[in-house]
């Protein structure tokens, strides 16, 4: 009788404690829960680059994809673009594709920007923010690293250094 009571009490207290602990944990991690989490499959998308060529993410299966979201007006984006371009040249042959998605800007602005920084990787414009919404991105620049199986390996916001860009490429080398 006494023992049973102890069991019942222990179970009730444990359930209550677990619920409270989970709530507290969830409350503190809610700010960094991403829509597209690391370890999950990256949502597919199709965009047309400035040369009129279509890029579908799922077509790059077997290759690592360095997916960068940016804007011409965004200073850190502007800083990191040349680094990414350099690394692109290094890793292009090793099976890595860079896809740079501009958020909702004009063709003129994006083309000029690409010319000014002589960027060679495919640049595309997410005109109605579909891809941005799908990936749940807020601050730019944002970089997703997607491995050869189409799984997100890393998510990074903020400006990259050249070394980081290189490390990132290294991480998704097939």
């Amino acid at each position, binding site marked *: 009788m006494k023992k049973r009571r102890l069991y019942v009490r222990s179970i009730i207290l444990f359930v209550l404690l677990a619920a409270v602990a989970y709530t507290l944990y969830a409350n503190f991690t809610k700010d960094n829960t991403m829509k597209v989490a690391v370890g999950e499959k990256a949502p597919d998308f199709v965009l047309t680059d400035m040369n009129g060529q279509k890029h579908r993410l799922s077509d790059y299966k077997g290759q690592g994809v360095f997916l960068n979201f940016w804007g011409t007006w965004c200073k850190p984006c502007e800083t990191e673009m040349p680094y990414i371009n350099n690394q692109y040249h290094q890793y292009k042959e090793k099976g890595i594709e860079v896809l740079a998605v501009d958020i909702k800007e*004009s063709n*003129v*602005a994006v083309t*000029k920007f690409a010319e000014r920084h002589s960027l060679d990787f495919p640049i595309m414009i997410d005109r109605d*923010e*579909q891809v941005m919404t799908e990936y749940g991105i807020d601050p730019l620049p944002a970089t997703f690293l997607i491995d050869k199986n189409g799984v997100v390996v890393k998510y990074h916001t903020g400006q990259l250094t050249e070394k980081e860009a290189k490390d990132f490429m290294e991480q998704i080398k097939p």
Partner: protein
Amino acid sequence: MKDVKCECGHVNPHGTVLCEACGKVLDEQEKDKNLLDMRYEGSARRSITYNKTIIDKIWNFFSSVKVGVWLIIVTLIASAIGTILPQEMYIPPVMPAEQYYQDQYGWFGKLYYQLGFHNLFSSWWYLVLIASIGVSLVICSLDRVIPLYKALKAQRVTRHEGFLKRQRVFGITKNAQTAATLPLLKQKLEAKRYHVREENGDLLAEKNRFSRWGPYINHIGLIIFLIGAMLRFIPGMYVDKVLWVREGETKVVPETNGKYYITNNKFILQIYDKNKDDQVFGEAIERAGNIPKNYQSNVTLYKAEGNTVAGEKPKLKKLKDFGIRVNEPLTFEGFSLYQVDYKLNELNKMSFALTDKATGKSFGDLTVNLNNPDTKYNLGKGYSVELLSYFPDFEFGKDGEPTTKSRIPNNPAFVFKMRTPDKPKGETSFVAIKQTIEPFGNNKYKLKFRGIATNNVSGLTVRKDNTLWAIILGGIIFMIGVIQGMYWNHRRIWIQNKSGEVWVAAHTNKNWYGIKREIEAVLADTGLQMPYDQLQRQQNEIEKEEA
């Protein structure tokens, strides 16, 4: 920890104050009192009786009403402090919160921020307080409702003398003819909706016992409500997104997995007009100036058909046209779109005329779409304009180069190349609002500003809340519980023969005034005397002594 056997034969759990069956006082301390403490029927509150393991100690801590009340008071005070200055979520996002509080409220603001009150309601310790109240609700209720249920179920009609004597309402009638009056009493009590039980010529009339369960039911409601609040933290249960849509623009609704799209056809802002609206508002409008009348976004909702991948143009099927207003959200499949914000007159288009500076002669107009401008504008007869660069939100960068602050066309600037039959190589002109720069010397031609077109932007909130069912259910159960517990009261009247006298005693959990009036009506014309309110008699005596 032995159970206690009462002289009436009923076996009570250890710690029982009043025998569950006959009401005999089992606790020595209680015997000295003139009136019984009838809370929880004098049943054994389990938690008090054991205090052995750490589990028992935690249990007993939360089982105490005193602790519960303290938790409520602390929460109350903390909440009050949280309203002294606006919470972080309500301050304008002009600067970091830390700076804002100091800047606006001085040292007090700084202290407020440092102590974490700027974000009190999602701070860990506030959550712990609320959670502790929840735990206290569960344990307090469990600890009380079970013994109370058992005690009320075990009660017998015939009660111990000590029990009756110590009821607040109690009286003795000597030489009464009970046998004759019993049926009449019974009938009268039943007419008052009492449930009457009879044993050995003793009566127990009882009604509204269910009101005793009110507190526990409302606690269940609160617990369900708190569970609902907790569910929000589970991913996917709660969506809170902002969606800005320009007039004429079609956008995917976030969090719908690309299934729903929305077009903003028009944003409407209406202000009360002294002359057009009801005259009674005249003075108020004069005093306050602009009083908004309506914020409305006329939208069309679409559903994407087939499986399209983000970035592809989806095939859209129109579902409905709707005017989203404040208080009238657009609802579909668990989602709601609310009108929450707007931006008026965002630049949309700008027109220019290619003009000869000297003669002022115009060679045709061009209109630039500021959100996605074309690069070539052919004006015919060998006149054309090419857009070389575009800065939607123009400023000069640190290096003196023109740049843009954002992608919103707040302050558009352009670099145009104007080609004319006499200048086939073209002239370059930098055009911004109210300024033109000619970087390569004097031009013959210029682009003369002709006009602008603006449109409005609607700020909508996208909301999905899968926790609402628990919140609503909890609210309903809580209300049922409080009403059941507060608008009814559990009344019992004992009319019993004790050695040739008739003893009348009564108990209610509240509203003594009501039960006394009821007893008066029942006892009228039965020869039984109206019992006394012992509490009042005590008080009257005290007052008499004082006077």
